[in-house]
């Protein structure tokens, strides 16, 4: 029943949001792209000059770039593996009938609401500290030498902390999806003589395939940008052991003031994120039609 009049009104109502987002996207993006071709250091103002592809060459051939890419992949892959497997198991468990389900669910999802700086510092100091941490006390009680987590296995420690934050997210989404699974479908399968394993394999897994994909894609977008957890625990070290792409760009641009190389890195990060984003957008777009 949309008239000419209401169309115009609708356009007027949408435009502030569109204009704001357009500026938010295009202005900084254009600047990043422009800077990435400049020789531009904040410590030497006024010496900006055209640099061609040099920044990209410099950034891509820097050995710490290779390290950062490997670390980023390990971090994203590690957290995804833990949260997806753990999330499916937790969701299946929490979906069973039990007493106090509401309370238990609240406890499980709580870590998701803890701000990244808090969870990183709490794990680093109260749990993983080689002298005063709980893990060290446990190790001493068992008569084993305590492990210095952030010196010996820094990246694994960060993967652990980030997984603790994101496991609730995966659990919550998969649980929501399991609860929307038609009970009659499961009962029909049971009547037909399917045991638990077969019901899981042929009814639940196909049902979970879609939410698992959504979890993987959304988490990947966020995990590519992990920053605070690294900043407050290891500062990217020792060496470059925990430097991911986001952190490397931060170091280049705001600690070494090399705007040109930092921007080239930023463009590369955008391209990588977009590869994931395309798949995610396609899935969400399909849902919009339904």
């Amino acid at each position, binding site marked *: 029943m949309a008239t000419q009049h209401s169309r115009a009104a609708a356009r007027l109502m949408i435009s502030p949001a569109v204009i704001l987002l357009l500026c938010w996207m295009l202005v900084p993006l254009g600047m990043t792209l422009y800077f990435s071709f400049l020789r531009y250091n904040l410590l030497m103002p006024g010496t900006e000059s055209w640099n061609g592809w040099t920044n990209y060459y410099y950034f891509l051939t820097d050995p710490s770039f290779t390290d950062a890419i490997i670390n980023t992949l390990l971090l994203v892959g590690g957290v995804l593996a833990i949260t997806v497997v753990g999330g499916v198991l937790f969701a299946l*468990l929490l979906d069973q009938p039990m007493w106090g389900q509401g309370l238990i669910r609240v406890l499980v*999802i709580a870590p*998701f609401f803890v701000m990244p700086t*808090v969870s990183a510092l709490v794990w680093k100091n109260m749990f993983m500290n080689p002298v005063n941490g709980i893990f060290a006390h446990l190790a001493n009680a068992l008569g084993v030498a305590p492990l210095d987590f952030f010196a010996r296995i820094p990246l694994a420690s960060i993967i652990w902390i980030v997984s603790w934050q994101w496991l609730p997210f995966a659990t919550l989404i998969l649980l929501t999806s399991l609860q929307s699974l038609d009970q009659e479908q499961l009962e029909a399968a049971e009547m037909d003589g399917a045991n638990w394993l077969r019901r899981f394999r042929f009814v639940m897994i196909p049902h979970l395939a879609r939410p698992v994909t959504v979890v993987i894609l959304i988490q990947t977008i966020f995990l*590519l*940008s992990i920053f605070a957890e690294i900043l*407050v625990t290891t500062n990217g070290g020792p060496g470059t052991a925990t430097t991911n792409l986001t952190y490397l760009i931060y170091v280049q641009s705001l600690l070494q003031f090399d705007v040109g190389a930092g921007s080239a890195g930023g463009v590369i990060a955008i391209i990588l994120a977009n590869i994931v984003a395309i798949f995610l957008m396609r899935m969400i777009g399909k849902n919009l039609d339904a």
Partner: protein
Amino acid sequence: MAREVSKRRKAITTAAAGCVGFLMFFPILWIAILSLKSEGDAIRGPLEILSSNWTLESYGAVQERSNYLKHFTNSVAISFGSTFLGMLVAIPAAWAMAFVPGRRTKDVLMWMLSTKMLPPVGVLIPLYLIFRDTGLLDTRTGLVLVMMLINLPIMVWMLYTYFKEVPGEILEAARMDGATLRKELFYVLTPMALPGMASTVLLVIILAWNEAFWTLNLTAVKAAPLTAFIASYSSPEGLFYAKLSAASIVAIAPILLLGWISQKQLVRGLTFGAVK
């Protein structure tokens, strides 16, 4: 029809799930305990910690040492301010797209979503420079703007999915009965959409409260919210476990409560309606 489940099986699942819940929650529980101990006790063994005296001194020390209230106010101002501003822009946009859909509505929605996929580090330098040159660095105003913009796509999307669920027939019936657009808005639409708007507000406040990339990079002292304030504990000075715990508890408590209230809506908001 719910199936019969034996009491024994229910007890076993309850125990297993209870363990899982306890383990996941344990770090939060543990800092709650440490925050109520003296610094000297907080670094002892777990059993000695549990049996030591309880005290509130750390909470006082945190406020004294670092003017905790200032950072708390910053967090409140930034998360509530950005959410309020964002809703002012997002409600009309989502309303128009849900009730007067055009040919390109879907494209606009998808495009808005795509801005959320932009990795923040990709635009770190331009934003930092713009903020430096306009004097927005380390101001609440600057952060309110950034938070509003990064959460705007989520707000529009969530509101859109909620508005979509309002049956169009009701609006038409109201129109037939002679309701003007304003009446339609205030007496028909608003009451129906209120729960959706409330949960959008909750989710966006949570996201803004916990955001830790822009707050760490664009603030120093004045406008630093709790995320940045807690980060200052990363360089320890003497005994600080109890104080760090107290600071952490006060920083996460309000948002933990909001989160528990809005856990159902969280799924819809974070998956952009892909999982309901």
